[in-house]
Every structure is written in structure tokens, then in C-alpha cells.
């Protein structure tokens, strides 16, 4: 049951990723198509900080970070757990990936909040 819940959460994350990454692509990578602005200008420090002060953008990026980290590390966990090893190794994989996820989520969220407040 626990594994089913983890899988459903990963499945839900994919939907979130498609929507939020679509927004990220439009804002950062396909600006000539969506905003008539060069990619270089969109990536400039001034533009980046100006966009980062928007509360909606902050929420979008924190949600995207959480969904992408969960989906990616869940997939990596599935691959690693297929490899031969003991129950102890499985626990180490679960704990290690959870730790990586938390560290990157905290750091990424801090960067986003820093941008929002500067």
C-alpha cells in the first residue's frame, strides 16, 4: 500500500511538472515565441530578479522544484532498488535519496525566496 501511495504521488507530480515546466520553458527558453523578447535578455540578472519578485512565480518554482525532485528521485530509487543488495542497502538508498531531496529542496527554495525578497 505504501508503494502504491508513492507511485500515485509520482504520477500526480508528472501532471504538475508538465504544467509548471511548460511555464518555465515559456519564461526562460522560448521567450522569442511567447514574449517577443530575446533569450539573453530574459536570462539577464535584472530581468531574472524582477521576475523573481513576483509571488506567483515564487510559488510556481517552489512547486516545480518539489514535484521534479520527488519524481526524479523516486525514479532513481526504483532503478537502484532493482539492483542486487541487502535490506540494509535498500534502507541506505531510501535514506540517502530522501536526504538529497531535502537538501536540494531547501537550497532551491532558499534561492527562490532570496530572489523574492531582493
Amino acid at each position, binding site marked *: 500500500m505504501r508503494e502504491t501511495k508513492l507511485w500515485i504521488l509520482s504520477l500526480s507530480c508528472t501532471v504538475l511538472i508538465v504544467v509548471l*515546466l511548460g511555464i518555465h520553458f515559456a519564461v526562460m527558453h522560448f521567450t522569442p*515565441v511567447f514574449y517577443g523578447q530575446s533569450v539573453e535578455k530574459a536570462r539577464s540578472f535584472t530581468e531574472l530578479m524582477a521576475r523573481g519578485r513576483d509571488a506567483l512565480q515564487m510559488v510556481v518554482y517552489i512547486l516545480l522544484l518539489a514535484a521534479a525532485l520527488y519524481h526524479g528521485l523516486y525514479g*532513481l530509487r526504483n532503478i537502484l532498488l532493482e*539492483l542486487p543488495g541487502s535490506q540494509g542497502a535498500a534502507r541506505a538508498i531510501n535514506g540517502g535519496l530522501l536526504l538529497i531531496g531535502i537538501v536540494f529542496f531547501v537550497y*532551491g527554495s532558499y534561492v527562490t525566496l*532570496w530572489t523574492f525578497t531582493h
Partner: protein
Amino acid sequence: MTAVPEKTSHSVSQPRPNYLGVGGWFYAGRYSIERYLYILHRLSGLGLILYLLLHVIESGIRMQGAEAWTALMALFTSPLFKFFEYVVFVGFIFHALNGLRLKLTELGFFLGKPAQPVYPYDSSLKRHRPLTYALMALAAILIVLGASSILFK
């Protein structure tokens, strides 16, 4: 975790060991298109998670100020980084559309209705295959369009 079976000498009556390790990703015999998509899905997924972690670290450079950020962005305009960016884009498009196919399959869509096994045998895999071809064709179109947007701008 999967237990590794002990190695035994082969004979006609003994089944082939079903644990092939990481090598089994690349060769497990009797390949179909779905098997290649499985390998590509794993490889693209591993590449994307590595990219995500690097991307989070790279995003933090902004906290060092405008100069450090501008220098980093200048690096990303080099042809090598443009190529890497395109590889990430290709990996994402493939992973997303093949992932959509996998989720539809796991949820039971596009597999057809169960039927009696009457010769010539049909399979859910064959009934599912038009969707596979359609999604991979869409991936190919987006990958080509992305090349014009990322590589040649």
C-alpha cells in the same frame, strides 16, 4: 531488492537465469520497440535528474551578484553549452511523451478489451502500438522544432 540467483551450468532443461543486471537493460534478447523505449526512458531519466540537481546549484549563483550571474550566462551561450541544452531538451521531450505512454498503459488505456486467445493471436501490446508510434512521431517533430529554436537562434 532483487535476490541474485546462484550461477548454474546451463542445460536444455534449465531455464535461463532471469537476473541480467545492468547489462540486461541493453540486451535481454527478443527485443521489440518497447524494450528500446524502456532503455531510453531510463537513460533520459537519469540524465534529467542529474541535470536538475546541477540546475538547482547553478540557479544559486545569482546570490553572488550580477557579475557572477552574467559571467555564467555568457558561458551558456557557447556552442558546447547550446548543444548540452539541446540534449536536455531532447531528453525531456522523449521522457515526457514516453512517460505519458507508460502512464496510459499502467492505467489500462489503449490496451483494448480482453479477448479469447484465438489464433492468430492478438496482444494488448500490438493494440497499443499505434499510440506508441503517434507519440514518438510527435516527439520527433518537437525535437526538430526545438533544434531550430535552441541551436540556431
